């Protein structure tokens, strides 16, 4: 009988590069930037790392395939490096590999590092790719904003929300994230915006305007994990452990079967339930202290508040406008600026979310430090509403 991951693995150290348009650096240098911070935070040497998981999504734009780019960049001592790719949830996937390796007893100290170098394409927005040989022959041509914008029309139809109310609510999602990002010196976008700016921005994909879309950034993030026992033996205090690590993938139901109404993430609800069970959380709205969710687009964050069972179904639109998820709200969300403002270097994003939760739990988040958070949740999503990978991870103080 599986006993789950709760409290079996501790985060020994984390690092995160500055995110943004890093014209000065390639993926190789970004990896080193995040890694050195993690190494120093963990208080270990490269020679102590026994296995590594490496995540990057768009290999053709940055490092190419395989695990060697990480091994070479960090001059790892010929240990195993497993490259993982699972759309925008790749960073969480790398973390999962390292955590499971430690939990399995296969190694004492493991590394998870995610990187993405997106700003070498010559144009804005995410690079276009080739999704195999069959899908290009029938799949609708569209962009990430156009795919996620689908949620808005279905959500409005299901809950009877007016176009104006929804637009205002998603504008608030972005205004809140910009306010948070302004306090984060590693963030890609550090300027606050007003609701009017969000409402009147150029349209990207109806109803998403420019400020409803997250930044396309370069960056890397990194975690070094071990067992709580080893962490304690190394003299660590305030040990942060993994409480839950869940991943749910679409199996074609949303895109093929008429039981899904298009207004929510089928996978997120499944991953969230499993994660709460694994972490022993019964009342998420009261028990989760803070969250970093996959706000690739404002509408994604809005519906995710319901998928994670924090807002009741159909109520997120009002909870958002009431400030429930603001920095001074009941469950602060995207306290580091989120994908929206911290940025979204795809392969790194899942680890970046954990980085913020980790800093907050250790009281090291500086100007944006929340008061005494206990449980941090990360939600990392890849794909599109009708076909995706969803990760929900929960971390907190050891024993809490």
């Amino acid at each position, binding site marked *: 009988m599986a006993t789950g991951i709760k409290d079996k693995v501790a985060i020994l150290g984390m690092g995160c590069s500055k995110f943004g348009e890093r014209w000065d650096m390639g993926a190789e240098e970004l990896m080193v930037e995040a890694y050195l911070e993690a190494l120093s935070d963990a208080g270990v040497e490269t020679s102590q790392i026994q296995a590594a998981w490496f995540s990057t999504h768009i290999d053709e734009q940055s490092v190419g395939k395989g695990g060697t780019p990480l091994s070479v960049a960090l001059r790892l001592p010929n240990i195993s490096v497993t490259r993982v790719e699972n759309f925008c949830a790749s960073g969480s996937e790398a973390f999962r590999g390292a955590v499971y390796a430690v939990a399995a007893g296969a190694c004492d100290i493991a590394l998870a590092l995610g990187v993405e170098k997106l700003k070498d*394409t*010559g*144009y804005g*927005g995410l690079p*276009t790719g*080739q999704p195999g*040989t*069959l899908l*290009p*022959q*029938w*799949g*609708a*041509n*569209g*962009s990430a*904003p*156009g*795919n996620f*914008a*689908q*949620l*808005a*029309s*279905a959500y*409005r*139809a299901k809950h009877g929300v007016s176009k104006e109310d929804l637009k205002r609510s998603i504008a608030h999602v972005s205004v809140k994230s910009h306010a948070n990002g302004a306090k984060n010196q590693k963030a890609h976008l550090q300027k606050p915006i007003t609701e009017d700016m969000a409402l009147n921005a*150029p*349209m*990207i*994909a*109806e109803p*998403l305007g420019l400020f409803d879309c997250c930044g396309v950034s370069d960056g890397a993030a990194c975690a070094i994990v071990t067992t709580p026992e080893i962490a304690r033996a190394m003299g660590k205090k305030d040990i942060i452990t993994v409480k839950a690590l869940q991943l749910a993938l679409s*199996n*074609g*139901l949303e*895109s*093929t*079967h*008429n*039981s899904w*109404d*298009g*207004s929510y993430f089928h996978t997120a609800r499944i991953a969230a339930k499993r994660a709460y069970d694994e972490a022993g959380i019964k009342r998420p709205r009261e028990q989760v202290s803070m969250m970093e969710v996959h706000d690739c687009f404002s509408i994604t964050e809005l519906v995710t508040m319901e998928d994670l069972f924090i807002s009741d179904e159909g109520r997120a639109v009002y909870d958002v406008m009431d400030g429930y998820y603001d920095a001074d709200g009941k469950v602060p969300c995207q306290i580091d600026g989120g994908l929206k403002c911290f940025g979204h270097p795809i392969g790194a994003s899942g680890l970046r979310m954990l980085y913020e939760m980790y800093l907050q739990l250790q009281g090291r988040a500086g100007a944006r430090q929340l008061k005494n958070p206990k449980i941090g949740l990360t939600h990392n999503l890849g794909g599109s*509403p*009708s076909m995706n990978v969803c990760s929900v991870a929960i971390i907190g103080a050891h024993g809490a």
Partner: protein
Amino acid sequence: MTGHTVGITNFGAYLPRLRLQRKAMAVANAWFNPSIMGQGKGERTMANWDEDSVTMAVEASRDALPTDKDPIAARQHIGAVYFASTTMPFSDRQNAGILSSALNLPEHIHTADITGSQRSGLSAIIFALEKIAAGSTPSALVAAADRRSTRAGSTQEFQFGDGGAAFVVARENVAARFLGSHSISVDFIDHFRGAGEEYDYNWEERWIRDEGYSRIVPRAVKGLLEKTGVAASAIDHFILPCTFAKLDQQIAVKSGIDASKVRDNLSANVGECGTAHALLMLADALENAKPGQKILVAAFGQGCDAALFEVTAAIEKNRPQRGVKGFLARRKEETNYMKWLAFNGLVEMEKGMRAEKDNKTALSVTYRKRDMLFGLVGGKCEKCGTAQFPRTRICVNPNCGAVDEQKPFSFAELTGKILSWSADYLTYSQDPPQHYGMVTFEEGGRFLAEFTDVDIGAIDTGAEMRMVFRVKDFDEKRGFRRYFWKATPV
């Protein structure tokens, strides 16, 4: 000669929704050619960027064929497919084969492209009728469509239209009995388009009118009337595509046919649609014809084909769903001449780097998935009844999961509803914004589909959508184009 028992059983038409206003064309070109202002009247049909002669032939054929929810079963009676056009998208890849696949027709039939002249459309019908009369096939589908390239500001740009027509010809239940045909074949070069050339080269209009039409067409008409033993005075409808004003009436009179019997050539609101035009005019005539009426149709081009039909009582129940009349009504005025230029490759727009995506097509995949990609065929689980697209080995129904139980099921003739949508300004589209969304079918099944022929701000969730066969992407590097089905408002 009345021995024929073969004829037309069904017919259909297709006209693209956009109607380019000739005034807008004239205003845009008058600086270069002031005399063009005189042509600035009425409108012409304008194909959307994703339409070509094959897609228009598919639509015209659907108008002529049974549109049962199960087109695979309903169209088994078609024994051959002939496609006529001088603007086929492929020079060497049978275009009729694409048409046949898109219509879910059986694979054990004869298909062929008929091309090379403006009279190819009528030639194809005569050819098919004679094949049936000879007993080599019980029925055939004949479709013609054209989307001709013209230079900006040319007379042809004003005169031409884009469109298609289709006929089912057979030996039973005919709505218009074939009485006979007569042809004159003579290499009269009024215009030509050399192999690999984009545009026609035209000779002097007066010569074409006086030495071409006026001398050649009457010979074909006379020969036909003599052959069939029908008096000129017995003709109720005279059809002759011709861009010279009133020349059709002069030729009718010269042939002994009253000028009042000459059918409107749709020049005011459609334009001349190439090989399809005689067929479009025939479809238009049949839509309004009464049993017993005789229709003479002639088509000019390196000679002339002429054919005679007699309408039967079956016409009353064999008229098309939409027809010329229906498609004339499905209309959107277009006054943006720049859009016309862009859709027709007459101006090079700045497409941005996103358009650099390589659209190379894996042809072995295209073949393996041909019923899916061309016939919009998914699967229906025999165990739980769930329709699904695409067809897979394992049923998607979470309460079923049956293995290898899905039977082919086409979604092409089903009406869908919009579950979710967006208008995407980021994705490259030849007609931004790119509209797409999840389309669900009452019978089960759904997929994220591109939308076409939609207007900004005019769609929403719950809207009913019809599936149409269109160009999905062009591979300009290799001269290939992909087709797939898109959704358009019903």
